[in-house]
């Protein structure tokens, strides 16, 4: 091999790599077409995902979709009262809008309608125009990012848990932390303080580095010598309430949903950040009840949580007797953060009243509404096909089914945006197996709009992806803490020693540790 041919090969390899990178970054632009004649069809076109009749945020990224109508050519025009219409031509039915043009169109039309005209060219019959899709562009924006956990359909093993964040304005996903980087560890229970991506708590566990909670603040991550379950920050940032539980999974041999979960024991505790001490109180650590899923009211004066009576004697049997009768009540207890004193425990809404198990309470930041999921029984709503979202009006105490947002499948893991107008939640629609993230608009009276799935750059993304999305949390910007920083904290032998002046929240069998065994 001569020096010259060596150079040639070297530059050829460089050129191939450069081409690959360019090709990877490049998206094909579509050619405009002119349709002079077309037949009108009164039926709406079949599109996936279903982005019709919805209310969308003015800052959401392009709602790309695939037209599932037989045809050889597809032409889509999206327009509103102002701005330049978007035109996309496709031979396959994949409609992917230009991000820049889409954002421009939406940004000049808040509060107005967004029309999407769809034309399909069929073999021999020319163009057919379907009934157009009409969506509404809301005036209130959505928080720009949502953080969530991704797993595969999960049974006994977890190898691929990861916390991601999604840029809702640009349809881009990025990784916050993945368990596989730490000997297949499990990462879970992420919780942000007042939508701030810089301040968060995150649980992890694995065989090498054990089990603890990571506390991220101002770009640094510390390891706390304690593992939190479901966690909620006090709005002041001084306290985090969390659950500790012994939760078990079991499997149904002949039901549509194979999995089921039961808490054999649980209680609440809270962590005082400045004193580095974890505490509990008998009001939410009753050995005869299962207390879990805490959330603070936006003014910080109350801690809400759900609680159910223990209906079995044998706490080791799986599943325990009467597991199908376990229904959780919504409770609250007042708290003075300055003096660290608790008030009287109250039942805010009982399962007896609703006839259902009330789970995952979440406040709108304006304090007007509380969103919960309700299902026939259980502490784990996503494994219950009966699980639906309900909105509680905190002024009147009345609750109502979010009919427009709900489906025939499970809905859970919900949360409000920082302006209280948007909700994000996990839903198993349309097929009942894969959990995806959906958004819905909640107006000032508490009325919801039809939910829509989190948009993706790849229009057909959801048609062959079986990733499970859950525990979504809106955040005001991206989490900038690197995986490396999380990794350093996980590996670190230094951890914040947490004083735990209670043995465990609920008395239990000797030698047994109350901990998270499954989420």
């Amino acid at each position: 091999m001569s020096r010259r041919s060596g150079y040639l090969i070297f530059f050829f390899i460089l050129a191939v790599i450069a081409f690959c990178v360019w090709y990877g970054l490049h998206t094909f632009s579509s050619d405009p077409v002119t349709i002079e004649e077309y037949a009108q069809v009164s039926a709406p076109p079949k599109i996936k995902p279903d982005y019709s009749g919805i209310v969308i945020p003015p800052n959401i990224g392009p709602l790309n979709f695939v037209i599932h109508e037989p045809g050889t050519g597809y032409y889509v025009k999206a327009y509103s009262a102002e701005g330049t219409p978007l035109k996309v031509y496709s031979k396959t039915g994949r409609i992917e809008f230009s991000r820049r043009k889409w954002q421009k169109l939406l940004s000049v039309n808040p509060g107005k309608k967004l029309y999407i005209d769809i034309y399909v060219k069929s073999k021999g019959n020319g163009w057919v125009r379907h009934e157009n899709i009409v969506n509404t562009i809301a005036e209130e924006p959505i928080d720009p990012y949502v953080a969530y956990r991704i797993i595969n359909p999960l049974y006994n093993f977890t190898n691929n848990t990861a916390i991601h964040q999604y840029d809702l304005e640009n349809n881009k996903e990025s990784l916050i932390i993945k368990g596989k980087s730490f000997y297949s560890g499990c990462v879970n229970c992420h919780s942000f303080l007042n939508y701030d991506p810089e301040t968060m708590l995150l649980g992890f566990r694995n065989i090498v580095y054990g089990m603890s909670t990571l506390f991220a603040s101002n770009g640094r991550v510390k390891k706390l010598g304690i593992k939190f379950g479901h966690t909620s920050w006090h709005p002041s940032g001084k306290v985090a309430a969390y659950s500790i539980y012994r939760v078990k999974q079991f499997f149904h041999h002949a039901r549509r949903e194979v999995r089921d979960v039961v808490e054999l024991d649980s209680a609440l505790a809270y962590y005082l950040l400045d004193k580095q001490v974890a505490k509990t109180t008998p009001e939410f650590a009753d050995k005869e009840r299962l207390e879990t899923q805490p959330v603070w009211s936006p003014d910080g004066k109350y801690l809400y949580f759900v609680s159910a009576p223990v209906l079995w004697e044998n706490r080791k049997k799986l599943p325990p007797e009467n597991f199908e009768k376990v229904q959780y009540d919504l409770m609250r207890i007042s708290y003075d953060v300055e003096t660290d004193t608790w008030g009287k425990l109250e039942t805010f809404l009982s399962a007896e009243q609703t006839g259902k198990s009330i789970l995952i309470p979440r406040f709108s930041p304006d304090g007007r509404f509380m969103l919960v999921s309700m299902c026939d029984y259980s502490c784990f709503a996503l494994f219950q096909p009966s699980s639906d979202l309900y909105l509680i009006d905190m002024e009147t105490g009345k609750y109502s089914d979010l009919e427009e947002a709900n489906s025939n499948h499970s809905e859970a893991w919900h949360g409000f945006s920082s302006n209280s107008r948007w909700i994000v939640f996990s839903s198993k629609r349309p097929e009942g197996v894969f959990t995806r993230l959906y958004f819905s608009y909640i107006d000032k009276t508490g009325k919801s709009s039809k939910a829509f799935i989190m948009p993706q750059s790849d229009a057909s993304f959801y048609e062959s992806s079986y990733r499970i999305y859950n525990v979504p949390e809106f955040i005001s910007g991206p989490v900038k803490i690197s995986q490396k920083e999380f990794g350093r904290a996980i590996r670190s032998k230094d951890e914040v020693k947490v004083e735990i002046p209670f043995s465990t929240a609920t008395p239990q069998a000797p030698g047994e540790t109350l901990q998270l065994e499954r989420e």
Partner: protein
Amino acid sequence: MAVLTKRTVVTIPRINILSIVFFACFYAYVWMVIEPYLIYYGFGIIVEYPEFSTGWGFFKGHLSHVSGLLEYVTGFLSHMFYYSWFGALTITAIAWLLSVGTVRLMRLSGTVKSNFIRYIPALFVLMMFNHYNNPLYTCLGILAGLWASILYEKISPKNIAGSIFIFIISLGVLYYIVGGGASIVFVLISGICVVLVEGKRLIGGSNLLVGTLMIFLFGIYLSPMSPTEAFFGMIGFEKSPEWSLELIPEICLYLFLPVLAAAVGLRDNLSSHKTGRADHKKSSSGKKSGSKKLRPVFQTAALAMAFFVTVFYSFDSRAKLKCRTIYLDRQEKWYGVMELISQLSSQNYNLFHNHFLNKALYFSGQLGDKMFFFPQQSESFLLSSKAGKGLKEFVGCHIFLRLGQVNLAEKKTHEIMENTGEHPQILKLLAQINIVKNQPETARMYLKALSKNLIYGGQGKDLLARLNEDPHQNTDPEVMHLRSIMLQTDSHFPDNMTEKLLLELFNDNTSNRMAFEYLMGHYLISGRLEKFANNISRLKDLNFNKIPVHYAEGILTYQSITGKKINMQGLIIPPEIIEEFKIFEEIHDDYKDKQTAAKALKARFGRCYYYYYTFYGTDIIP
């Protein structure tokens, strides 16, 4: 006056007959003996499943991380093992390129003859594939590292700055394409060559230092792991962290080329110090002429011996057998499975063979007649315990579906997918499970993923088209059969309780013949003759028109022990079976020593249930 003479050196490529013969044999061996398609069938069970999917999205995903391109190529070539001839060609091509690279490496130092040494990397490659592992990732990485070193030697400028600059760029590109492992090979070879062969100690030393530091920093910067974890991870050892003898060829291949470069360089240095390079070459060529005639003979003999020794000592016949059993089972070649397993020695026969055998016997309608022709273990039916995790889960999910435990099959299949990845068999099975559960939308998701598979993509598309035409698949006989036996009554006990699971199925649907036969087989193996006897009356309901041989033997054993009669619903035990049983009892009674009796009776009665019961199951109370 100085006379300027211009000399042109023309290199005529010589045909190396020995090399052609060696690689022809190598190809033939890999194709015909190793049979790469068997490695393909071991993916996800014996070796890690190499993820590969067609389509831009998958490729794009691999562009976004270090060594993604190497993983992509490895995935593609691994899937092509499905076609044995192509797989053999790939492996041979890698071995050949390593061999040619070795020659080039030696020539860099002026060593013209590489002789036998050039074949050593090929032999390491052969040893790795002989274990039915899939070392493509390692082999391709090392190959890239080697050729990048050769390329660097050719293009590096004379000056220090330029040389280091080109080195850093090359290393950066190589690191992105193939990751840390191959980059280390590159750094070591190129550094050693520059120091020892070219004598440029400053450049070579700088390259070694800068290269090692760069890889170390890349590892720290790009990975969230600790430096040590990152280092070992990037050289490819994170996937097999446990030490085993099978790692030796891999480690040897990693070390061989840098060590060779160092050895050749040092020899070159020492020779030139003593006599000067020209003299050295002269003397060595003089030596050659002495034994010129005999040398090819010795070389060929040595090479042939090395080849056969490598083959003989490293070939893992057990792994091959396991892969072939999986292949035959997957193809539903039941008689092939039985024939293969019947050839096994008792040392090689294990729970998995037992499982595959029973499955083959059932599907060929011979379980009740021939299962005691082979050693039996009661866990074999559902692989309920002891079994190795990967195979147990992979195989278990198939058998649970066939039995009608559809939910447990779904659970197991998802679990194996969590560990294995998007294996086409898993995707297909999940689609099938969801079709049976009448969840066509979910099935469609899995079939769409299957459609992107390199080998099974066509099958995925066909199944998808069928599903689109008839979403509920009400005309598919297999789907209808599975729906008919699918468990309807819910319960929630663990999936390792063989008897309970089979009983649950059979009680739920008394026409579930597979559940019945497995249950009866389980009772016979575990010696629970009372329970066996209680279920004999079900034979008629399941349309048995004759009593299977082992059932008859079980009935006779039970009656002989308990003195009770069994209602056989009009079915008759053939007189020859009764006669044989009587003879067995008579002979058996003649022996007082159990071991002597077992030996004496084995030839005639070794395949009968009562023999098994008497000599293997006596500790079990009927």
